[in-house]
């Protein structure tokens, strides 16, 4: 346990350094985007945080589905813990992606929010996982909670791609206002972007490990309480 803790502390330090470096690179090292107004140029740097957050939220919810399937297949509680912890982090990254996207959208589209396919899908995804936690909170029996949450975790994640496509087609009668692929990253931006992506992914892994450790302690405390008859 102690050695594990030391390893976790070291990894946490690496992740923190990685995020600080990624922020510094993104703000200083990355070249300016060409052909934008000054405000847009500053806002463009958000891509180094926004895209990794969005990608990690999806990864996190994917891990939740893996944990859910693992639980249903094996019946072991640690799989349920993995699903729960990853979903929590997923919500945090979803909110981070939405907030940073909003900050970028104001100068770029002159609106904090539009009902563009990606944004709409994201809203539905956020609602899905809010419901996931509402479901968990509405049950006291841990075994039933784990089973139901696992079933919902599978349905929720599988519905995301279908929702995305349906919303994209739904909007096709409108002119395409913008296309995120339009300003692909220039050569100078790429290393910074991928560094940031790696740093954020490490951050996710660290957060997940810490959160899992917390969940294990919680279960240990519950077990001790039962033994002591509280």
């Amino acid at each position, binding site marked *: 346990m102690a050695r594990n803790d030391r390893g976790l502390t070291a990894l946490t330090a690496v992740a923190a350094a990685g995020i600080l470096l990624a922020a510094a690179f993104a703000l200083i090292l990355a070249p300016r985007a060409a052909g934008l107004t000054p405000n847009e140029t500053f806002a463009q740097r958000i891509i180094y945080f926004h895209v990794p957050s969005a990608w990690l939220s999806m990864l996190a919810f994917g891990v939740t589905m893996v944990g859910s399937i693992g639980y249903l297949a094996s019946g072991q509680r640690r799989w349920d813990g993995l699903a729960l912890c990853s979903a929590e982090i997923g919500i945090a990254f979803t909110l981070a992606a939405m907030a940073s996207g909003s900050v970028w959208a104001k100068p770029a589209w002159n609106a904090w929010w539009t009902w563009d396919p990606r944004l709409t899908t994201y809203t539905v995804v956020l609602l899905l996982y809010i419901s996931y936690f509402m*479901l968990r909170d509405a049950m006291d029996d841990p075994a039933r909670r784990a089973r139901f949450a696992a079933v919902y975790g599978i349905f929720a994640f599988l519905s995301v791609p279908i929702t995305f496509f349906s919303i994209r087609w739904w909007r096709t009668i409108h002119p395409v206002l913008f296309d995120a692929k339009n300003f692909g990253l220039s050569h100078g931006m790429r290393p910074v972007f991928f560094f940031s992506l790696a740093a954020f992914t490490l951050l996710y892994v660290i957060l997940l490990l810490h959160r899992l450790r917390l969940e294990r302690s919680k279960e240990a405390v519950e077990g001790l309480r039962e033994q002591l008859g509280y």
Partner: protein
Amino acid sequence: MTFWRAVGAIVWKDVRAELRTKDIFSSMFVFALLAVIIFDFAFELRVPSMKMVAPGIVWVAITFAGTLGLNRAFVIEQDKGSMAGLLLAPVDRSAIYFGKLLSSLLFMLLVEVILLPLVMILFNLAILSWQQLVVLLLGTYGFAAVGTVFSAMAVNTRAREVLLPLLLFPVVVPVILAGVKMTGALLDGEPFSTLGNWLRLMLVYDVGFTVVAYLTFGYVVEE
């Protein structure tokens, strides 16, 4: 074969219980009608033509009324203690799923078949056609296929019926979108053949989630 006989028996049981009380059908139908009328109050004189909002009204009314019906499907079993009886029956658990799914689907379709002519009369719209019925059937099936699993979960929680719409609505967004889109296109007089993408999406949803529900329903009713 015994599997489908068991499914049929559960559907028949629900239909007979419904014929005696008419609880589910009457509350679903009145609720759907009220939803349509409230939407009429809400939109009238603000939109140039009811034709523009009618597809949305129809689908929202179906969604709300359907949620009501799906809730009842398992609440009645739970309240009378008959769920235990169903679980003790020597058939595969998925037979309970398909039985409940088909009876909910039947009640919802019945509501829709009566609601549609009323919408036609109230809004003066040519909304009755076999194409519309196909769209309604596919959409309602997807809605009920997912809703039956979630309903079985919701009745076993502290929040009971309140939870079902929260669980169900975000997952059925694609079905509602596709349904509104197709109903609207058909109302605008577009031919059925132009709806290929949406129909395929709905079919993928229906088939995909039926399989997922089939695989997971056993875990939901496990005691």
